[in-house]
């Protein structure tokens, strides 16, 4: 079972601050992490590989710094890691991003065995994306990749099981879930609640971070691919090919910290009424 996981490196929003003047994220000094839903996707892929065999590829589109997220993915146990990076992608919205990722997924660069697969056919049985990124929260890139590739998709998945050429997955809603059978190849978007991602191992961290040299015959590196490698015309991606544009960002007004009271229904009602009166709301 060959699986590709698409990941995004994001600022750790639990530590993020917003510049009150410009309304934009202050990225300086903020730690970057693998987007939590995507990290669950890496774990899911490695766990499936452990049961059914095959190979796990991890792909990320982003600036050169995103390489460190891919190193972490390798250190968790991914077999191959690719960084899709090119100035031409700068300013891409979800549409332009998903188009580039779709082209990368079907490109020769990512082919597992160059002979077996016919041209324009993807070599992965399963594409996993995280539900959404914590810095944008759009939840669009995964589903759009499936559309660009003409593949069936299921979003909001928390369980994956393989049955021959099919997957049986659990898709969650707010108050219910569905078990769905889907034919591979397909795309799933997964939730971070689905698993507890494993830690990186020390040996794989040192393996991927070690500088390649002739003596070490090192083969494990983050492979960088550009727009040329995926056969996408530059005018179809980047800021100018993005149908959505961010016009303005703003912060919500500051709220004072909440307080938790533990009491029964009667006391709670009294407490709420008192508080509302105190603030002259009622």
């Amino acid at each position, binding site marked *: 079972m060959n699986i590709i996981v698409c990941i995004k490196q994001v600022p750790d929003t639990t530590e993020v601050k917003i510049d009150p003047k410009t309304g934009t994220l202050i990225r300086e000094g903020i730690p970057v992490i693998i987007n939590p839903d995507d990290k669950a996707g890496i774990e899911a892929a490695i766990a499936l590989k452990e049961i059914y065999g095959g190979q796990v590829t991890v792909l990320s589109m982003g600036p050169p710094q995103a390489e*460190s997220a891919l190193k972490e993915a390798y*250190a968790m146990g991914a077999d191959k890691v690719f960084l899709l990076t090119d100035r031409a992608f700068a300013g891409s919205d979800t549409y332009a991003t998903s188009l580039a990722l779709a082209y990368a997924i079907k490109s020769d660069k990512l082919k597992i065995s160059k002979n077996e697969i016919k041209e324009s056919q993807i070599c992965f049985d399963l594409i996993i994306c995280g539900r959404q990124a914590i810095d944008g929260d759009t939840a669009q890139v995964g589903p759009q990749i499936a559309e660009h590739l003409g593949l069936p998709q299921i979003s909001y998945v928390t369980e994956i099981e393989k049955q021959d050429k099919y997957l049986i997955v659990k898709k969650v809603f707010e108050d219910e879930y569905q078990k769905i059978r889907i034919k591979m190849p397909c795309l799933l978007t997964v939730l971070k609640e689905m698993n507890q991602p494993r*830690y*990186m191992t*020390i*040996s794989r961290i*040192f393996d991927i971070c070690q500088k390649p040299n002739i003596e070490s015959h090192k083969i494990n590196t983050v492979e960088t691919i550009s727009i040329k490698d995926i056969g996408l015309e530059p005018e179809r991606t980047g800021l100018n090919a993005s149908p959505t544009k961010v016009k303005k960002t703003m912060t919500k007004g500051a709220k004072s910290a909440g307080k938790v009271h533990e009491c029964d229904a009667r006391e709670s009602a009294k407490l709420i009424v008192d508080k509302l009166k105190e603030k002259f709301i009622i």
Partner: protein
Amino acid sequence: MHFELSEAHKISQRMFRDFALNEIKPLAAIIDEEERFPTENLPKLARYGFLGIPFPKDIGGQGADNLCYAIAVEELSKVCAATGVIVSAHTSLCASPIYDFGTTKQKEKYLIPLVQGDKLGAFGLTEPNAGTDAAAQQTLAEKKEDHYLLNGSKIFITNAGPADIYVVMAMTDKTVGTRGISAFIVEKGMPGFTIGKAEKKLGIRGSATCELIFENVKLPIENLLGQEGKGFSIAMKTLDGGRIGIASQALGIAQGAMDETIKYTKERRQFGKSISSFQNTQFQLADMQTKIDAARWLVYHAAWLKDQKKPFSKEAAQAKLFSSETAMEITTKAVQYFGGYGYTREYPVERMMRDAKITEIYEGTSEVQRMVIAASILK
């Protein structure tokens, strides 16, 4: 000169922090309270490579280095000093001497399972009458035809009990002093080898500290580690490396207490404001963190020297001396900042203060470190 951790070290440090916080911290107060060895942590430590960090991959190690190992012990000890010393004693005191002095056969049989984390290691040098004066060994290993006959006992042995493999010092020739000491590999379960009483300790109460008792243990000749009569120098070299581990443990304890103190002084309000807003607090916190950072550079430098295969004996002693005394000072101040709360087991700082004390004592007391440093600068 280059003062930045490499990318591999930075990523490892992040992993160690996550791991320590999620897997080790929840048990820290419990194993202290119950005075029990955290057996359930061992498979996790093994799985992610904590038990074979500075050893090459071809023998099952992680292919990392001593700096990475120091960072690992530091990060573990920030939340649980007992877990820190389990890893340190295993790595520095058991796996390292077998790696440095073992035969190919010994490495295959003992080192591979150790560094892969399938087996746990320990080291036996101290005896009731041979502490700082390690040369006064009374444990005897008499050479017979095809074996050594081991008799005697060791005390205060870290990891004793849970450990499977023990590097043990014994006299093979009583007439020639330190040149009569030899090192051996002893396995758990060998007839005549038993674990004696477990010590009830002030701190690191989750770490196992027991007696080793040898009664006519028949040790095969091939269990001699290094040459006969070279045991004392093997032990001293081993302890040089061990000091980096304990210095890292002390550093971790100090930073762990500091982190708790920073959080607490920001939250705790007296006289209408947080106690961190008082200038006396600020000045003290500044001094505390400065000492910890100084300790960190001493520790990382000693580890780096070892990685560069340069002499590191003096630097390891300095790192251990300064880090352990810093740990004692910082944890004592931390308890003071927490006031009455700090004296209770509701907060972790009293445990950290109890844990810190041992770092001034084991693997060479602070006085021994001063002897090593003085000998090096006066020679």
